[in-house]
């Protein structure tokens, strides 16, 4: 299901160019006592690809990342990074791999810059210029001399990304990378990931919020209760989505509701606040054109639930993916829950 990426992309930064996948995991199983955290998971990430690893809390995303990092050993299954086996726990080969699981962690009594220098030392050492470069990249150069204990969650997150970038990775594994970042920081993070991917870096991002990854990822793997429930490209995910939900305000809401009844792919309802909610399967364009023809002015048409969000919800819950689900999702999204 994964898209194949041309080796030219990876060639751009003069990297080792291969036709093998950056990540190839097959039949992974990890149990913790009686809980099966990861259940026969297959995963492939190509070089230059940004893959989103989606799932609600407890779906097994973090455990899967820990398996890929060699932090936990699989009970079953195989992992290959760039075509080479990951290796046993004492000989895990993470050359070219960087990132973090859960929140990035540091020695709080040391300044951010020293933390980076220590992590760089574990990679064989690096020059001070590279440390400054990555600090600049994550907008922390002014605070590099401060102890990490004084950093906010967002600053730690950015420092974690800097620690990962220190290695100029060919494979970047990031767990909830936008957690703790403000909207501008999250946007910058997305741009950075896209830039790295365009240079050939394979990126695997995990999140329980599809909105964080929607504009960044080329492909998605959705986990639920440790199992892969969907795997494919962003286009395929949109195509297979049960629909989307909009918030609509017009010059004549009653007329707009009447017109909606003529469009079988649209289910329109009034919310308790009096606004119109549209649950749409497919496109909303024809309906909007009809409103115009009927002299109903569209004052506001806001996408509240994207196709990817609805798909994610449908895949990770037992709720029937119909217009009612979309409407409820829209209400929940607008209520901020």
């Amino acid at each position: 299901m994964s898209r194949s990426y041309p080796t030219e992309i990876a060639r751009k930064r003069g990297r080792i160019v291969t036709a093998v996948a950056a990540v190839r995991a097959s039949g992974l199983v990890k149990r913790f006592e009686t809980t099966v955290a990861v259940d026969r998971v297959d995963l492939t990430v190509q070089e230059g690809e940004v893959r989103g690893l989606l799932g609600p809390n407890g779906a097994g995303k973090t455990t899967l990342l820990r398996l890929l990092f060699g932090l936990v050993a699989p009970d079953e299954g195989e992992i290959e990074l760039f075509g080479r086996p990951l290796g046993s726990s004492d000989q895990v080969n993470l050359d070219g791999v960087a990132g973090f699981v859960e929140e990035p962690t540091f020695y709080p009594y040391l300044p951010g810059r020293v933390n980076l220098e220590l992590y760089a030392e574990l990679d064989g050492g690096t020059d001070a210029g590279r440390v400054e470069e990555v600090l600049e990249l994550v907008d922390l150069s002014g605070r590099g001399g401060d102890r990490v204990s004084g950093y906010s969650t967002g600053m730690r997150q950015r420092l974690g990304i800097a620690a990962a970038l220190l290695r100029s990775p060919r494979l970047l594994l990031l767990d909830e990378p936008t957690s703790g970042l403000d909207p501008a920081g999250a946007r910058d993070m997305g741009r950075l990931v896209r830039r790295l991917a365009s240079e050939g870096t394979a990126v695997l991002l995990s999140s329980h919020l599809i909105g964080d990854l929607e504009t960044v990822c080329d492909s998605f793997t959705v986990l639920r209760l440790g199992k892969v429930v969907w795997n494919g490209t962003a286009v395929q995910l949109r195509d297979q989505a049960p629909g989307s939900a909009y918030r609509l305000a017009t010059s004549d809401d009653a007329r707009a509701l009447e017109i909606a009844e003529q469009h079988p792919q649209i289910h329109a309802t009034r919310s308790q606040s009096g606004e119109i909610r549209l649950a749409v399967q497919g496109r909303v364009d024809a309906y909007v054109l009809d409103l115009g023809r009927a002299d109903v002015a569209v004052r506001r048409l806001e996408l509240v639930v994207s196709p990817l969000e609805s798909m994610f919800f449908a895949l990770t819950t037992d709720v029937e993916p119909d217009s009612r689900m979309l409407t409820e999702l829209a209400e929940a999204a607008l209520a901020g829950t």
Partner: protein
Amino acid sequence: MSATHAVRPGEAVPGPRARSHGDVWHVYRAERRKLSTQLATRLLALFCVLGPFAFAGVLKIQSGSPADTLFGVWVHQSGFALSLVVLSFCGAWGFPVLAGVLCGDIFASEDRYGTWKMVLTRSSTRRDVFAGKLLAAVTFSVGLLVLLAVSSLVAGLLLVGDGALVDLGGRTLSTGHSLLLVLAAWLLNLLPMLAFTSLAVLLSIATRNGIVGVVGPALIALVMQLLLLVGSGVWLHLLLASSAFQDWYALFTTHPFFGPLIVACIVSLIWIVVSLGGAWLLIRRRDYAGTTVSRRPGWVVPVRVAVGSAALVAFLAIASNWGPAGDTAAKLKASIDPSFNNLTILQQRELGRTVARGAKLTVLPSCSRRAATPTGPGDWICTLDVFIPQPGAEPFQQTPVTYDVSVQSNGCYKAESPPSFVGQQTMKDASGNSVVNPLFVIYGCFNPL
């Protein structure tokens, strides 16, 4: 990560590269930097440098001496004795505490800060990380021991002087000989120090708790010290890592014996191998699963550990009687007799009396233990009947001198006699200077094996 070569499409990149010592070296450098920035490490280093000077300074302004410790009465007379007293203190408590504070948190701190997942996802393997951290721990342990050795020697020589050291057989050693023996004594503490460092590393890894790692070695040393006080058998005492801190005394006897020293080295190595082997197995097999793995909360584990430890200590206390008795009346008599002879001659010479070279007292010693069991460490009493030649019908005058002797399981003892028999702790020599009365306290050691 820039390319230096291209791999053809379809071809896998090279497999795991051969690990080199360079990786360990980088971990070592990082760990060394971390340790050297920590306040505890800096304070310990400062303590090791200044502690002996402070000790020597305090002794300088008072007349008392740590007479309970071997060589303690000589600290006002010889700088070498001061270094040996510091070494005795360290062997009992200092080295286990240093090892714990320095190395007990070296692995557990990664658990506390949650940084294992960052450390283990860099280029270094678990093996590199383990070896690098261990190397840093060893470097700092050895470094502190060397600091203490140098500092105590310099403090002794500067503040007390290079006065002659009287060994455990009552002989006066030359300055060069004293220096050599003192350095050798410090060197012999290296292996047991590393044994406690390894133990601290094991506790740090096994419990993932810095407090246990820091306090654990000192507590274990305390238990070992207590076990050394009970039982009369030699086997268990020899196997305790703490006893290895005390075997340097053998170098200072009239006829040095090396059996206990060799055993101490072997025992220390066993402790090192077992501790580090266990620590490595734990690190190697551990899953770094964060909060995914539920850890059993509450008091169950601590209670189990406490009960298990108590049972183990009780068992060891019983086991302390296994093996032949190391402390016997015959060995004590054979040791105290020549020491008394040598020290008496030393005393007479210091008082300005002429004693012929090779002169020997006629002494009939008898020793017995002040307990139901006739052998083993504890309180003993030795009576030395000195036969002094005199003219007349009875050619010898018998003068009994009684010493209360405190014997340790390692064969070392301290013998004290009431001042009415042997005089005060200090006396005036022929020049009118106040010097140590050699007979006031007799320190000695015999081979317990």
